[in-house]
């Protein structure tokens, strides 16, 4: 085992992406370390999803830098890379879990093919191995392996989300971006998915950036939290600290707005 790096995996310097003044995100500075889960919370329209798209190399920012540490002594400036390098990174070392499974899955092909696609994209050409890995990941995300040849359109919402996670994890990425992964799921399914995510994150030492408007999800998964408003980060810190002792008036409002049953 190598020592865990003291250097950040992902560094964001003064990143801005504005559609109009105040719309989008601006002056974002962040560090993300290996094995860390960072939550991004804020109200609708606060720029969370824009920030996530920019961080996950899918939306070029207007200004600022995104630095990814590929190995101990090699860093990549993501938006200076060629598009083909960026795509390769996205399907090997990174992963994106979308809020709507239809955005992240190929609904027209079987679950096994969905899991195998990334493997084939990075050059795996042995059918039996692709199949075996597909089955193993189905098990790991608690999907019924007898349904490997079924299309995801026949899956329930929770199963589709788990399939999406399996599809991303199959190439052993180091960094995963999630946009409201539990949105639209009922609470019991949500709880199982969160449990699964928490286990996978610990087991695989994943770094995760998770966007959510659900503070309970953030509390359960994220070690660190940033709070966004009008496109800017208004508060950041350890999750428990931010949620239990909010400093910024907006965070205080957010925390006090949570309904408890």
């Amino acid at each position, binding site marked *: 085992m190598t020592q865990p790096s003291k250097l950040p995996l992902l560094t964001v310097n003064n990143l801005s992406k504005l559609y109009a003044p105040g719309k989008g995100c601006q002056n974002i500075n962040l560090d993300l370390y290996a094995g860390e889960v960072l939550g991004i919370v804020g109200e609708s329209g606060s720029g969370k999803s824009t920030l996530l798209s920019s961080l996950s190399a899918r939306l070029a920012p207007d200004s600022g830098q995104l630095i990814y540490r590929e190995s101990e002594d090699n860093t990549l400036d993501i938006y200076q890379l060629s*598009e*083909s390098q960026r*795509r390769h990174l996205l*399907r090997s070392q990174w992963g994106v879990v979308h809020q709507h499974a239809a955005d992240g899955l*190929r609904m*027209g*092909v*079987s679950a*096994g*093919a969905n899991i*195998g*696609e*990334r493997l*084939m*994209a*990075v050059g795996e*050409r*042995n*059918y*039996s191995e*692709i*199949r075996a890995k597909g089955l193993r990941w189905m098990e790991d995300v608690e999907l019924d392996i007898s349904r*490997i*040849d079924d299309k995801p359109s026949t899956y329930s919402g929770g199963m589709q989300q788990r399939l999406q996670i399996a599809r991303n994890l199959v190439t052993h990425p180091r960094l995963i971006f999630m946009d409201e992964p539990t949105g639209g799921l009922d609470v019991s399914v949500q709880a199982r998915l969160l449990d699964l995510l928490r286990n996978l994150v610990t087991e695989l030492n994943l770094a995760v950036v998770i966007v959510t408007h659900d503070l309970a999800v953030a509390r359960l998964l994220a070690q660190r939290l940033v709070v966004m408003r009008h496109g800017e980060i208004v508060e950041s810190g350890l999750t428990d600290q931010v949620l239990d002792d909010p400093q910024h008036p907006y965070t205080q409002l957010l925390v006090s707005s949570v309904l408890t049953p």
Partner: protein
Amino acid sequence: MSANNIRQGYNFAYLDEQSKRMIRRALLKAVAIPGFQVPFGGREMPMPYGWGTGGMQLTAAVIGETDTLKVIDQGADDTTNAVSIRAFFKDLTGVKTTERTTEASLIQTRHRIPEFALQEDQILIYQVPIPEPLRFIEPSETETQKMHALQDYGVMHVKLYEDIAHFGEIATTYAYPVLVNDRYIMDPSPIPKFDNPKMHQMPALQLFGAGREKRIYAVPPYTDVKSLDFEDHPFAVQQWQESCVICQSDSSFLDEVVIDDKGTRSFICSDTDFCRSRVELQAENSLETL
């Protein structure tokens, strides 16, 4: 009709010279980048899309007075489509036509590559319905173009994976995707995968024309053409237990034909020229032995 049997009132080979030049420019680019789909300003031809307008435009652009033209449809020289296209070019150019693969300098084809090996002085022109091999999984044209540019071809194997998962083998039997010159994935038009190996290092020039989609692509002579597969499910061509009932060939592509109303079937060569040549040869040999 004039004395030399060329229909009057039309330019040589129907298309005007400017259109031919435009197509030739696209062809030059296509040959320079093997497997790359070059857009061209497809012209209206006096027949519907889907009947081979792409192939005909290419033929019109490259045909010259000294050429000998052969047209095949599903391997046969005597089907409606083949006969009509052959008659069309004979009418409008006066060139010699033939049914013999070995005598032709220009062969326009739909769905087959002739059984006889083609030579350096021959050109094979394919009629193509859907030129984009990525279309089945990616409906967006901008996205498929980007995928070609970045060689982002992982999805091609997804289709083959699906075949094996559902049928136990690669069940794609025609329009089987190929990698050309180690760079571009290409749809070889709906030829049976039986013909795919013939494209590899073929001495003849291969041109592909899609009239409706307005795309031209090409495989220059002696170019690598590799059929996609998996290590543990390698590419394999169709095989038959039977042989041709006319010429007894056991190495050619066979068509299954129902011959009565009781469901009796027999198998015949799909390449009619190949079949007839073998019958002629057998007749000669049996005469010699008499």
